[in-house]
């Protein structure tokens, strides 16, 4: 059941992502009508049974965020490549109960951070610890 839920989540996010990246006509007033061109499954939120999150579970969750790179394409306006993963902002609760954040661009760094292997992110210098 748990695994099946993740497949639903992955399918839902993958269905949404093309909508997010697809071209949408610019609106003069900046706020535009929402894109409603496809029905997608309701994304669900998993609740961990324990604050200690297994690495395998983290990797499964991150699969929808860190996606395989795409090949570049030659166009009349230059060689272009679609970016499939941006700079990913993560948060976790630190030893003192406060939020620690990190901004990473690869899955390994994200897994390490979320699994707590990196106890203190860069910003922890300015955080309050015990």
């Amino acid at each position, binding site marked *: 059941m748990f695994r099946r839920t*993740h497949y639903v*989540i992955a399918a839902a996010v993958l269905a*949404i*992502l093309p909508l997010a*990246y697809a*071209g*949408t006509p*610019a*609106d003069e007033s*900046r*706020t*535009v009508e*929402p894109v*409603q061109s496809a029905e997608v499954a309701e*994304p669900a*939120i*998993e609740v*961990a049974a324990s*604050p200690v*999150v297994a690495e395998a579970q983290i990797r499964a*969750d991150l699969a*929808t*965020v860190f996606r395989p790179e795409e090949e*570049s394409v030659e*166009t009349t*306006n*230059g060689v272009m*490549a*679609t*970016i499939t993963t*941006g*700079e*990913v*902002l*993560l*948060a976790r*609760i630190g030893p*003192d109960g*406060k939020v620690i*954040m*990190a*901004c*990473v*661009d*690869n899955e*390994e*760094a994200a897994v*390490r951070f979320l699994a707590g*292997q*990196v*106890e*203190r*992110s*860069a*910003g*922890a*210098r*300015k955080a309050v*610890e*015990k």
Partner: protein
Amino acid sequence: MLRIIFATVVLALTLDASAGTGRVIILNSDKPGEGLNDPTPATPVGGNNGTTRGEQRMNVFLAAAERWQRELDTNVDIRVSVTFAPIAGCNASGGVLGQAGPSTVVRDFSGAPRSNTWYPIALANKLAGSDLAPNQNDIFAQFNAAVDTDTCLGSTRWYYGLDANSGTDIDLFVVVLHELAHGLGMSGATGSPGFRENRPAIFNTHMLDLTLGLRWDQMTQAQRDVSVTNSGNLVWQGETVRANTDRFLLPITTLTVTSPAPVAGSYDIGSAAFGPPAATASLAGTIVQMRDAANSDGPKETDGCTTLTNAAQLNGKIAIVDRGDCTFVVKARNAQAAGATGLIVVDNSNASCTPPAMGGEASDVTIPVISVSQRDGMAIQTQLSSNVVVSALLHVDPSQLAGTSQQGYVRLYAPCTLEPGSSTYHWDAVASPSLLMEPSINSDLSHGVDLSLHQLVDIGWTTPQGRRMLRR
């Protein structure tokens, strides 16, 4: 002569008219009832007058877009596709807050300043003077609505106010400013330190490794693999940032070891929330290792958690102690009771080269308390264990700014032991005051764009104030 002047004025007006007409456009890509369309009633907060959660989220995006639009000069619209749906996997202990970046990177387009170099599409459009990919958005941004539930990060929420008063919540405005900057060009064309198709992104051409004396675009992949963890020595090479650094960073407070020669030099320090501020503290002398009994309160003889066994040696000296096993305050009180003039806490983890901040409340602690990284601290302790006298001085160095190298370059984030590939597209966390583009969204950030704007100018953006803004 008059004809030349007239032609020059007309040309200038024409250039001015073509510049700055582009907008930063937020495109709502959420489905009805979700994310930016969330109808949940919300009370206006911190200058955000939205009355639903969706409206408030959109207002924050619009405010951040307006900020970048005001700061940057382009004649091509920048389209930002935004979703604010829940992202799977966030639970009480952590998860993904969001992500953003350029939707597309492009190289060798007409008007590209450098060949064989990837540019984010928004910047490429600006440099080309036209929309190179009119059917695509320029930046994508995906944020996690689950933060507004107890299941994700517990009681922590997005803060939708526009007044920089987020408290313990996460200031969405700052996060969006930060993430949009990645989309505008503070990013590579693939995960660092890799290069897409062995070609650099324009950002990479400004990354200078002081150890090698090479920029990333001049290095091999093997050299970049090392450079990405060369903490303190990977810096930004760009004239606009360099010319404006002193407007945003304060002089560094540093621990300078004056002898012996093998460890002489300046060390980054972390500060404590108690005791006198390091920047105003007066501290100079020789360093002595704190020693106490190894017991249940502190299993190491160097953790300083219980009554000291060498108190007499510490009198009038700077104490040094290992982090861990008890609070920073306990260590500080023990050092102070022994007559130490200050305390250096050595980090007990090499997960980061950055000395930790130290929390605690102790109005009775009157000696300065600072921290150093494990690497730096162990170098000092190694000398002490060989009975070598180590002398040091805590002082404000007016010749160097906090977050810069000794050569005056602003440091990039290159944590010494993190996984290769951790994002270097940020400033080093030692910058003080905090900068928008550090890898963590620090709670003391204002709503400004600080050196980040100048970094964007270095890669090719211009501002309404001038096509090449050297200083303003």
